[in-house]
């Protein structure tokens, strides 16, 4: 489904601000994989997402999405196959436009000069009702009036309106209160499961990283330290994960030390 081969990225090369964000990263996702990604700040998680989505061109390597090499494809073209949510709930919808208009944009379809049909509006209503937030009765209100949680739920709906081949969730519940975060997470799970979507989700919540999905990646210093799936992942606790994290970071450091000495 998604294959990353030897992806590297260094920002500001040759300056004092040089920052190596990804180093020779390889990753393969199968169709229907729901992968959670954990790692400390600066580990390269968001950079990995940016590379997949096409926000920048990686220095080395190639990205193959659904059998097609998309390494050189601009971001907006890839976005047809990739749905994306950010931590900031304000980032995924246009506040000055109505809920209906935002959904119409997300739905795409039709020609550039086509209007939104009645049937489509009815479909939007049904989809909104799934959120159970009463938004289906507020379709003509501007999105700017919604709360952060409602906006993030709406963004999730928009990103999955046309089922994407790949869904990238970048800590999409981190800015929400615990109750709302739980709701949005449950919604995410049901949408991903029902659509059979392939999904990558960054989270700082170790327990949800283990509970959700079928695979967990641990990143550090621009590479994947641990790739947990199948029997190795089952029955794993947060403590196990933390211990593994420390051990592996130590090992990586030792490796570096060996290389440098």
């Amino acid at each position, binding site marked *: 489904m998604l294959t990353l081969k030897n992806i590297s990225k260094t920002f500001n090369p040759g300056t004092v601000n040089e920052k190596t964000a990804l180093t020779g990263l390889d990753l393969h996702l199968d169709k229907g994989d729901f992968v959670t990604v954990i790692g400390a700040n600066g580990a390269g998680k968001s950079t990995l997402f940016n590379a997949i*989505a096409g*926000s920048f061109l990686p220095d080395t390597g190639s990205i193959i999405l659904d059998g097609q090499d998309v390494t050189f494809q*601009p*971001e*907006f*073209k890839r*976005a*047809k196959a990739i749905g*994306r949510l*950010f931590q900031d709930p*304000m*980032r*995924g*919808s*246009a*506040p*000055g*436009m109505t809920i209906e*208009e*935002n959904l*119409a*944009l*997300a739905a*795409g379809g*039709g*020609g*550039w*000069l*086509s*209007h*939104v049909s009645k049937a489509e509006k009815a479909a939007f209503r049904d989809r909104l009702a799934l959120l159970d937030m009463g938004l289906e009765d507020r379709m003509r209100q501007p999105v700017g009036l919604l709360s952060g949680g409602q906006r993030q739920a709406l963004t999730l709906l928009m990103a999955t309106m046309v089922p994407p081949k790949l869904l990238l969730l970048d800590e999409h519940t981190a800015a929400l209160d615990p109750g709302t975060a739980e709701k949005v997470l449950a919604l995410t799970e049901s949408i991903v499961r029902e659509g059979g979507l392939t999904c990558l989700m960054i989270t700082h919540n170790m327990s949800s990283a283990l509970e959700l999905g079928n695979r967990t990646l641990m990143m550090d210093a621009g590479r994947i330290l641990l790739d947990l799936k199948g029997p190795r992942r089952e029955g794993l606790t947060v403590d196990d994960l933390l211990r593994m994290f420390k051990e592996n970071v130590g090992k990586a450091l030792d490796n570096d030390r060996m290389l440098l000495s």
Partner: protein
Amino acid sequence: MSLSAMWGLAQTALELGLTCSLTVLALFLSYSMLNVCDLSTDGCFTLGATVGAVVAIAGHPWLSIPAAMGAGVLSGFVTAVLQTRMGIDSLLAGIIVNTGLYSVNIAVMGGSSLLNMNKTVTVFTGLKSLLADTPLAGTQDLIVPFIAVILVIVFLALFLRTRLGLAIRATGNNPDMVRSSSINPIFTTTVGLCVANAFTGLSGCLLAQSQKSVNIDIGSGMVTIALASLLIGQTFFGKGSIAKRAAGVVFGSIIFRLVYTIALRFNMPAFMLKLVSSVIVIVAIAGPYFKTQLPLLRRRLAGSGKEGR
């Protein structure tokens, strides 16, 4: 002052307001929707005026309208390419195009900075002879811009609800969202600026033809005047449907001209127009800002009094 003289003044204000409101509608699209402050407006307005005049003088009064609009599209396209594909800041792109258009405009007028259309058949004189024996005789100066404004409002109301129109609005409303979506912001910005500048060109063309002359300064300060009208309109009709808001900015343009006409009656010299429009823009933008600062100021004053800080 007699009633008929007053009506005469009001009619002039209405004609000018309607003609220039086409530029206001252009800014409604580029400034309010696309969130691009298009500073090439002055030059584009003059370009529409010169191209329209030259085509009309050549004997094609009706062709002058599509020609002026086409010239506007071209100008908007250049501005858009500069800011979307060449890494030039959007304000600077407008200024550069505006400067370049000065030479282009004089070139269009054949090296002169003034063209006279006293004996030219224009859209206005054409309609005048058509209306000669009807009850509407003599109202062509009002009817032409009125029809144009109605058509543009209808177009905008329909266009901004299409998928392309929604994409243009989203580009202005949340660029972050658009950048990570399947909308190509380069495309939407380009289309938006082309369409907006077509209206600016049309506006210039109609003003020149109704005045029966065009000079190189016809568009100078137009962007500020149009912004002032836009902001006046938005304070009255800032919310609601696109059609209502578009009609609102036309209303703003007419109000602006009426106020200006009244000010002229009180012996304000005509050269004050541009200073007045500048002040209106400052007040309209700074006003809401100071309003948000007011509670802070009030608490500070109250606090320093009571707590002796």
